[in-house]
């Protein structure tokens, strides 16, 4: 029986590793010179020092969540308008402050492993902490208007958001697979609830349930991967896995690779890589819109943080094994995301597919498996956070009460109904399309550069062609924004008969007898759109950042600095 043989081989292989002394094993210096702080400081005792500063943002968020709950308990049933979002963003702001301070911390700059090896404290983590803090601030502000409009206001949403962010931070800082799993679950469980948060909308419940079932399934797969990697290498901590693999050739690579594969699947699910992406459109569409933005930003960032840690740090020696897998995932993700987005008629769903496609570019950075690639991926995530939260904030404003109008027709004539909002949406869309002078372009440039640097010309070309396909649906929306709200599509007739193609989804659907039905998009509601102040702020900040990071190189340098040591 092959499995039995496999297992026995494994035991034989694993034994030598476990015979080394615990202390020696735990104190192995990780590749790259990262010193393992914590266990080694007191070799003979089980005393583990807790470097609180390394987990300060996380703590702030977690404690903040609890405080928020407590505060809500003592406050009257209907507190002052805007209190909770204000508090939440304040907590996020504190976390951001802490994270920024961490950035300048020497330990973080040098890169250390804290708290018994469970926490990775380096600028890579810190950058993600900053990102997540920002996402919290922006999302909480963007949610305010939505929640009040939908009559869902209360403290719960904010607490969930903070808890979810806490989990994401844990993922970002995780020093080992177990911490990664823990963070993943903390984040995900909160997100499940957030997805299902709109009690009166059936779609919201459906989104929550689907997310929950599939998420749990992928978590189980991920966890099994953790167990297998643990079995093959004797540890769940990244540094130790890496040092073990650097020093030994695993006798049974099968277990290791199977574990690796499952880890990729689990994390691939979180980042919505094709073919593990099926939940994404349904969940993004069903979830309350501002939460969708949060989800797209934070879950994706945390998922990629995990993927980068696992693949490039823990399993860096197995590059040859996982690179082709990621290559294929990247191609599929880019292609399927872009192609399916074309066929969508719902704005949120289209953006969901678009976010799938965007994940493909980050996978390009992962696939490069270099410092440059990783920092490119980070930069991509960083810019995408602003873009996606801003975009969904606009969608939120446009869709109206009860998420009545999320179809493409709703956005038609946006520029007439609110010029600034239209312009903002245009910038955000162009950024996602990767047009120069937006952060989206530099992000694409960076990942493509990293990819080409590794000789992946074809991957790079495929990615850029996917961008061209993707440009179609971004532009289509951009065009709708600038159309008159009541503008009718001209009847389509050409000698070549190819007209409909470039208007796919927008155009009347050709019926079987070849005649073109003139039924087009529903007209949007008329009248000027009013944007709640907080949401306007979010959109404004997103747009400004998108342009600023596209014109100046500061954000790239920032991302580069985050990864310079690894």
């Amino acid at each position, binding site marked *: 029986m092959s499995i039995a043989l496999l297992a026995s081989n494994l035991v034989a292989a694993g034994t030598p590793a476990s015979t080394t002394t615990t202390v020696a094993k735990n104190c192995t210096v990780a590749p790259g010179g990262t010193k393992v702080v914590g266990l080694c400081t007191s070799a003979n005792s089980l005393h583990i020092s807790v470097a609180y500063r390394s987990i300060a943002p996380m703590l702030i968020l977690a404690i903040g969540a609890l405080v928020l709950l407590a505060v809500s308990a003592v406050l009257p049933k209907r507190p002052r308008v805007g209190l909770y979002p204000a508090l939440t963003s304040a907590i996020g702001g504190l976390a951001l402050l802490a994270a920024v301070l961490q950035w300048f911390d020497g330990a973080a700059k040098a890169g250390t492993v804290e708290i018994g090896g469970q926490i990775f404290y380096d600028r890579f983590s810190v950058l993600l902490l900053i990102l997540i803090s920002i996402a919290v601030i922006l999302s909480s502000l963007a949610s305010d208007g939505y929640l009040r409009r939908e009559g869902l206001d209360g403290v719960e949403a904010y607490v969930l958001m903070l808890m979810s962010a806490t989990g994401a931070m844990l993922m970002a800082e995780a020093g080992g697979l177990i911490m990664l799993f823990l963070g993943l679950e903390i984040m995900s469980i909160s997100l499940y609830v957030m997805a299902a948060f709109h009690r009166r909308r059936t779609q919201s419940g459906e989104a929550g349930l689907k997310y929950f079932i*599939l998420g749990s399934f992928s978590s189980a797969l991920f966890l099994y991967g953790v167990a297998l990697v643990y079995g093959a290498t004797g540890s769940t901590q990244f540094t130790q896995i890496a040092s073990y693999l650097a020093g030994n050739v695993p006798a049974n690579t099968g277990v290791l690779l199977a574990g690796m594969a499952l880890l990729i699947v689990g994390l691939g699910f979180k980042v919505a890589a094709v073919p593990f992406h099926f939940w994404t459109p349904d969940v993004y569409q069903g979830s309350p819109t501002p939460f969708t933005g949060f989800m797209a930003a934070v879950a994706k960032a945390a998922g990629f943080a995990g993927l980068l840690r696992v693949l490039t740090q823990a399993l860096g020696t197995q590059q040859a094994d996982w690179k082709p897998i990621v290559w294929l995932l990247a191609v599929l993700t880019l292609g*399927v995301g872009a*192609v*399916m987005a074309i*066929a969508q008629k719902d704005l949120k769903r289209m953006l969901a597919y678009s976010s799938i496609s965007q994940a493909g570019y980050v996978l390009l950075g992962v696939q490069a498996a270099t410092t440059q690639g990783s920092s490119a991926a980070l930069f991509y995530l960083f810019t995408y956070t602003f873009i996606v939260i801003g975009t969904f904030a606009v969608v939120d404003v446009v869709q109206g009460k009860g998420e009545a109008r999320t179809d493409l027709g709703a956005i038609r004539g946006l520029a007439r109904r609110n010029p600034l909002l239209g312009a903002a949406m245009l910038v955000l869309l162009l950024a996602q399309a990767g047009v120069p002078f937006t952060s989206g372009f530099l992000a694409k440039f960076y990942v493509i550069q990293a990819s080409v640097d590794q000789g992946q010309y074809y991957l790079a070309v495929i990615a850029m062609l996917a961008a061209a396909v993707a440009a179609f649906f971004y532009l289509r929306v951009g065009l709708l924004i600038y159309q008159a709200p009541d503008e009718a599509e001209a009847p389509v007739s*050409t*000698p070549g*008969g190819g007209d409909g*193609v470039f208007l796919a989804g927008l155009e009347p659907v050709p019926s079987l007898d070849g005649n073109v039905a003139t039924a087009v998009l529903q007209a949007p509601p008329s009248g000027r759109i009013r944007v709640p102040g907080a949401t306007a702020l979010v959109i404004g900040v997103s747009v400004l950042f998108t342009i600023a990071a596209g014109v100046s190189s500061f954000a790239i340098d920032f991302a580069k600095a985050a990864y310079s040591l690894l």
Partner: protein
Amino acid sequence: MNAAYLIVALPLAGALILLFGGRRITDPVSGWLATAMAAGSFVATVVVWATLLGRPSSSRSVDKTIFTWMPVGTLHVSFGLTLDPLSILWSLFVTGVGTLITMYSIGYMRGDPSFSRFFFYLNAFIFSMVILVLADNYLFSFLGWEGVGFCSYGLVGFWFDRDSAAVAAKKAFVTNRVGDFGFMVALYLMFAHFGSFNYSVVLAPLAAGHATIATSTATFIAVMLVLGAVAKSAQIPLYMWLPDAMEGPTPVSALIHAATMVTAGVYLIARTAPIIHFSPDAQWIIASIGAGTCFLAATIACVQDDIKRVLAYSTISQIGYMFLAEGSGDYQAGIYHTVMHAFFKALLFLAAGAVIHALHDEQNMKRMGNLRKYLPITFPAFIVGFLALAAIPPFDGFWSKDEVLAAAWHKSPVLWAFGVAAAGLTAYYMSRQVRLVFWGKSRWETAAADHGAAGDTGHSAAGDTGHSVAGDTGHGSVGESGHGSGAPHEAPWTMTVPLVILAVASTFGWLLNADFGGLDFINKWLAPIFPSTVATPFTVSTDTKWVLGIVATAFSLTGLALGMGLWRKAVSRPALEPAFLAHAWYIDEGIAAAVSGPLARMATRFSFVVDATWVDGLVNGVARSAAGAGRQLRRVQTGYVRNYALAIGIGTVIVLFYVSVRAGS
């Protein structure tokens, strides 16, 4: 010598003034301005000619560079003039005849709403033509070459609201462009071989015997240039545009399509003689084209009913003689015939114009007749032109054609036979024309009644709106007697004076190059251009010449007698007017059918099938397949959780399978 600049500058100035002045320069003023400019140009040419005459024959060539046009790397082209016997000779008759015709036009075009536009084109034409002949390099000459083409386009299509005129103008231009193709290719080869277009670089060493050129290169350059010449001079196979070009006002036909522009090809070949000298093949090609054309066009001319189309085919035929002479190596004879032809053909056209004018734009000879009684000046003038063209001694045509035929005989009796046959035909069709127009009954009286309704054959575009308006207002004296029903009357003096001058020239012009008494001025004048290294000298014995001359004259007289006899009373002789000749051997119509039929269909197919469906279809197909893929993939997204989980499961299995393969290997 600086007067040379004036030759060019005056017509240019005239053209610019008329262009920008537009309609503010009114009716007669613009005409007189243009005439003055043309005359000034003529005077300047005479001055230059006199200056050159004062020099020894070996130094009668002066180059004057105006400024650099295209300096790129080794390519260096200037705007520059070359003043040598050949260019000045051409310039003389271009500006001279041009002046007369411009003057004639003042009367002819009177009252036309676009009066000044007409004279703009005339001056621009003279400018272009002198550039063509005076340029010191092929490329600058090409500028003039194209310039005359443009003016021809503008003048043929002068009455643009007639569709036939517009089509004819376009046809003329496009056909000439086919020739330009050859001209340009010759230029490339010239640059590749000589590194220059300057006559002084390309031709002078060859002419001086300092350099030689490979036969193949010479043949290629020559043949390509001849293609250009053939188009411009309306020779086989590109002659079809010229008859249609008769849509233009008659002075235009006289100036451009008879006397000057169409001889540009003759000039080009004469200029290129040093190269052609190295290619016997090219010489044969030129001679054959000439012989073939002069015969073919003459046959067609025999049956045309339109007064101007007869003359047009006659022009084609006569230029054929010039080509024949040049191909036979006797450039002087060709040029001699060119000059003589300029006189008598301009005369014929102007006289024909006066006839048309008198009959209110009637061009169909079958609706004319008996006009000798009404047109006391035009009639004798026409007769002089007729006799000159028919090569009846002692008029111009006899002498020059004699020279041409002598050269042809020396080249090959076959060529000569074609020439002689054509001479007979020429006399015949011209007699027919004279008979139909000036003798017989006054058919125009009845014709006027059903004016325009009668079944015209061919393209005789009788009085369409544009022209008849012009004609009527131009004739105040006639106009009062009703629309086109007044008696024919003689033209105003501005029109008759040129007729008289040209008639005199057609009678005595031959003295410019008489074969005897040391009167061969043209031969002597051109001698430095065609030394023995350019055109191998040959002589035809005097006896032979006598015999040849007598035979040719006999042919001419026979033709004349036949024509005069057969068409004394008759208006229509179906046996002598076979359809295939009336349709010009169906060549033109065949080409037109091919172009508008299969070729147009093919182009249409390319435009609307190949490009729209295939090439663009591919692009749209890619887009469509992307969109289609999206639509198909949407079906996978069923909304059922278990399907999603299954997808994740399958993905996982595939990844696991992949790693197991890797682990196994």
